[in-house]
């Protein structure tokens, strides 16, 4: 019964958030962009509101959080009661505080990683499609070889070689994910490079960088944006998995993935606290994909 009620309340709340966010965006947007927000579906405005909330929490984490990130405050596994509104974890740290800091670490790292993977993968993929010949063959076979190694094992290997720090974590996961982005970008670009306007640009004497940036990328945005939404979620999972294995984000830095693992024992006692960070991941994933779907629909003109 409680489950049913909370689902209904949750859906109602999302609906209200979506409506409110859309109204706010319409009012705040400059006249030029207003039509874009007018046709915006509720899911997209809800997604935008959620992403915005995450960003605010991540940026203002030290201000909002009631305690310090790694501070040990009392007994372990305290129940939900003031001043620890979401209880404490197995070392007696405040759950709410760590959730808030987790937004900063997990979202920040995942976003940086995905962005890096996309810049590298998309540029190389489009360039390979444009260059063709042995350049394309060499690069593509190299990527195939990298993709043949299971991603997690490959990341583990690289992290063991280069040591674990946030920077290497970002670089390693970005490198692994860039191979997937490369494949997509290359196949999309292959359809575009045969168009007459690319031939016209080449005949004009344009360099590769201009071709990639101005002629191909704008036309490849739709599938790449869709992939971005998915890839962002996979990166989340990779970070969590690596943290679980002790090669990701190091304690006492808060990270949603490791928080699930650390407190997993509580689930056996019917306590939902360990699921909160998982829920935070899920909510962001859904929100990102709502926004991406909306952009995708706009870009491909599916509604017309």
């Amino acid at each position, binding site marked *: 019964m409680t489950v049913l009620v909370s689902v209904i309340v949750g859906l109602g709340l999302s609906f209200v958030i979506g409506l409110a966010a859309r109204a706010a965006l319409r009012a705040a947007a400059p006249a030029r962009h207003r039509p874009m927000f007018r046709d915006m579906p509720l899911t997209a405005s809800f997604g935008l509101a959620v992403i915005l909330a995450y960003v605010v929490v991540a940026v203002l984490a030290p201000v909002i959080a009631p305690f310090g990130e790694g501070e040990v405050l009392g007994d372990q596994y305290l129940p939900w009661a003031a001043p620890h509104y979401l209880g404490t974890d197995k070392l007696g740290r405040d759950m709410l505080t760590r959730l808030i800091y987790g937004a900063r670490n997990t979202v920040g790292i995942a976003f940086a990683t995905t962005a890096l993977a996309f810049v590298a993968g998309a540029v190389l993929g489009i360039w390979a499609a444009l260059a063709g010949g042995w350049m394309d063959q060499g690069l593509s076979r190299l990527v195939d070889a990298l993709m043949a190694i299971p991603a997690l094992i490959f990341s583990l290997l690289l992290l063991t070689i280069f040591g674990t720090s946030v920077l290497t974590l970002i670089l390693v996961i970005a490198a692994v994910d860039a191979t997937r982005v490369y494949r997509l970008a290359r196949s999309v670009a292959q359809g575009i490079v045969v168009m*007459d*306007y690319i031939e*016209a640009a*080449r*005949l*004009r*004497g344009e360099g590769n960088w201009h071709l990639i940036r*101005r*002629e191909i990328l*704008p036309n490849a945005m739709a599938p790449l944006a869709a992939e971005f939404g998915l890839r962002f979620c996979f990166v989340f999972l990779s970070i969590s998995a690596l943290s679980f294995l002790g090669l990701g984000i190091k304690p006492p830095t808060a990270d949603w993935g490791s928080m699930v693992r650390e407190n997993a024992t509580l689930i056996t006692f019917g306590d939902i606290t360990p699921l909160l960070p998982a829920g935070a991941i899920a909510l962001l994933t859904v929100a990102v994909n709502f926004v991406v779907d909306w952009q995708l629909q706009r870009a491909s003109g599916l509604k017309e």
Partner: protein
Amino acid sequence: MGRDILLSIRGLRIDGRSGDAWHPIVKGVDLTLHRGEVLGLIGESGAGKSTLGLAAMGFARDGCRISGGTINFDGIDLRTAPEAIRRGLRGKRIAYVAQSAAASFNPAHRLIDQYCEAPVVHGVMSREKAEGDAVDLYRRMRLPNPEDIGFRYPHQVSGGQLQRAMTAMAMACRPDLIIFDEPTTALDVTTQIEVLAAIRDIVRQSGTAAIYITHDLAVVAQMADRIKVLLRGDEVEEADTRSMLAAPRQAYTRSLWAVRSFARAEQPPGTGTPVVSVRNVTAGYGAVDVLKNVSFDIHARRTVAVVGESGSGKSTAARVIAGLLPPRKGQVLMGGKTLPPGFRARSRDELRQCQMIYQMADTALNPKLRLRELIGRPAEMYLGLKGRALETRIRDLLALIELEPDTYIDRLPSELSGGQKQRIGIARALAAEPQLIICDEVTSALDQIVQEDILKLLDRLQGELNLAYMFITHDLATVKSIADEVVVMQQGTVVEHGPKGALFARPKQDYTRLLLSSVPEMDPDWLNRLLAARGEHA
């Protein structure tokens, strides 16, 4: 007429949606079609011809709705009939032949499988009987190897054969009505004749009624019993073919009839160093030579038309000049100097001198760039214009191609009509301030009135800017109106070459005569006479 009425459309209104608003595409048109009668629908693009044709099947495209009037097909009201009944009619009693057979066939299935689908699904005949029937129809459509051709995939047969196979497919259930939507527009003149003759015979023999949609008056004159002229969703006039051709009543119809009258005076022969000269070029892909020892010159202020059917090597010649296909033998000279064979080895100035305009403006303009950047980029790159100077140049170019700069400068290509897009292609070429512009079938995707405007624009620009044109086309009417010199190509060689007047008046080669005689004329008896003269037809 005394025959029964098969299709009767009264006061039909169809709206199309743009953004949130509905605007009318067809504004209350009446149409009556008797059994066994062929009605030609003509008009420029946007006249609502295709929309009306589809409405005759009770169908409206996505983003369109039928908002008023009645469509009565043999006693069935297609507007109110349930979808199941309409689906039962389509393909069985009403069939549709689309403009591009190549795009309408499913490339993954053999022709005969696609042929058999409609009769089997509608339960008209068994698969075995349908196959036998298909061979019979293929034979009547005069397709080569009628027993085997059905077992090929669409990419294994030529465009003209596909169009005939599609007509055969439409005939599969012996429908009462076939709608032909520009079935020969994408074909060469020589191929067009075969398809026209085949379609006309099969329609007459089987007594099927047809609606024939086209923008080509000469074609409709051969095919239709009656002609209806549409303009922006309204009927202009309707009459039987002969009286319509002899004495059109409305001014608009007369302007359509007069459209092919533009012909500029032949320019005096070129003197001095040619802008471009092609010397003994042999070129090809893989092991095949597409061009064999081809030579011709293009002088400033002159238009050289290169004509021939598809596969004759005319586009390949353009690719060699542009440097896209380095020749195996021979060379290309520009202003007396040899050009490097590949465009990558050419200097920026050499690239600037030779610009191209493409057939399909849709694929030649980057859909994500605004006109400002599309036109501005060559000016920025080659002439180093920036900021205010660049802006002024873009506005000048837009004015030059007769588009209002303030309205258009920030538009995307998708916000333009077909003719306007082609104008942008021209402006982009002009922005580089070239000496030679290669026009690759630039008018063949446009309807006749727009074609005329583009040709006039090109002619005016040539005079003002001292341009040389290489005009690749399979449309001899275009050649008649704009060319000074004609190069006739067949299977990779130049078969005839000379000034337009002399070549049209006294063609020396059989092939040239064949091409010239294949251009449809307005006379409704033209096709009969031609076929009789060629002895292909009783």
